[in-house]
């Protein structure tokens, strides 16, 4: 009897070690994220919403923070340390966990600019050689694979990210965002960020 109990205890430990973090909202790794990103990971500025973000994108960003390739000020200040001792396995599990939470739209952009943002998102501005965001981020800004979901993210987060490409941050990021975003004017950035913040 004692032996049996011991065996089940060993089994229980073994199982908890191999299971992913999903369904373990109390795990330390998740708690470390939600301190800043909000208990349901809906974002708490300046920390962006993680809920519903693409798994591969989240995982790539975690790697980017730990390797210091994502080098904008808040990333440097918070995320470099947060990911300093993150194992690839935990990064992978965290990405799965947050990608499976359902996202809520921030809806905090400027309503007046949303129509202009929608036009740029869908059509680009061919005369000025500005591409349509929809080509990569999808018809509903839902993202795919390593391309992030933009719909419903916070206005100020979207705005800062778009500004930062043009300011030379995240230089090692993959083609084509540094080129795309550096061509946008302040007003076009505000319009895009507004439109995107309202997408459900």
């Amino acid at each position, binding site marked *: 009897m004692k032996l049996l109990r011991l065996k089940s205890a060993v089994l229980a430990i073994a199982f908890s070690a191999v299971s992913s973090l999903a369904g373990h909202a109390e795990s330390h790794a998740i708690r470390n994220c939600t301190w800043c990103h909000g208990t349901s990971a809906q974002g708490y500025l300046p920390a962006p919403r993680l809920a519903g973000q693409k798994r591969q994108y989240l995982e790539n960003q975690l790697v980017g923070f730990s390797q210091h390739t994502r080098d904008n000020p808040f990333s440097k200040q918070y995320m470099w340390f947060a990911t300093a001792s993150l194992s690839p396995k935990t990064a992978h599990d965290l990405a799965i966990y947050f990608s499976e939470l359902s996202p809520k739209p921030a809806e905090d952009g400027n309503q007046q600019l949303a129509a202009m943002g929608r036009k740029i998102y869908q059509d680009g501005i*061919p005369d000025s*050689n500005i591409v349509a965001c929809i*080509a990569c981020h999808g*018809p509903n800004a839902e993202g795919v694979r390593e*391309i992030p979901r933009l719909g419903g993210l916070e206005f100020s987060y979207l705005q800062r990210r778009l500004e930062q490409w043009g300011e030379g941050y995240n230089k090692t990021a993959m083609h084509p965002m540094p080129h795309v975003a550096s061509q946008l004017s302040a007003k076009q950035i505000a319009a895009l960020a507004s439109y995107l913040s309202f997408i459900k």
Partner: protein
Amino acid sequence: MKVVRLRSLLQIAVLAVAFSTAARASDEKAAAGVSQRDLQAKVDYCETCHGLSARGFIGFHPIPRLAGQPVEYIENELKGFVEHKRENKESPSSTNIMFNVGHVLSPAMIHALATHFHDLNPKPFGGAPKEIVAAGKKIFDDGVPSADVPACGTCHGADAKGNGAFPRLAGQLYPYIVTQLTNWAKERAEENSNIMAPIAHGLTKSQIEAVAAYVSYLE
């Protein structure tokens, strides 16, 4: 009077020589009416989606390689988008993007772009499953006689580099070719591609994947 005339003639001659030198000095790719600067800006714009050196890119949908395509093919497709002859019924947003892109281009710019992309030769994008390449080569070289599918090389060239209105397949993105061949009637409703409809229809899913994998690795 004579002196004046002679002088103005001389001026004109000098101007003409100066202009012709300037024209020769500028990139010969730039057709009449397209400056090198405008062409480069437009090339950068195209490559934002079609990938560096136009080798193709996988966005929300696969975005095809343009590098090495015959000039005539690129011109035809751009005109097809502008004139609503090439409509992608599976992905209206793709059609919309290319209509918007195309309708602001002058004929001279279309020609300059087509020539520019034709002359590029980057390595293939890669990524296709390698174990089906051999089966794909057989289909490409011999066709599938039992399904009335001719050898691809007959029209697309033995090296798959295309010819005139027939597109280059060498190095084209694997998922792009798979999508096109799988949904030919919906993706490529334009009249001048009717010739491919029965051929695409005659291929099974695994044959499409095999031939797409084979050509995607050709340089």
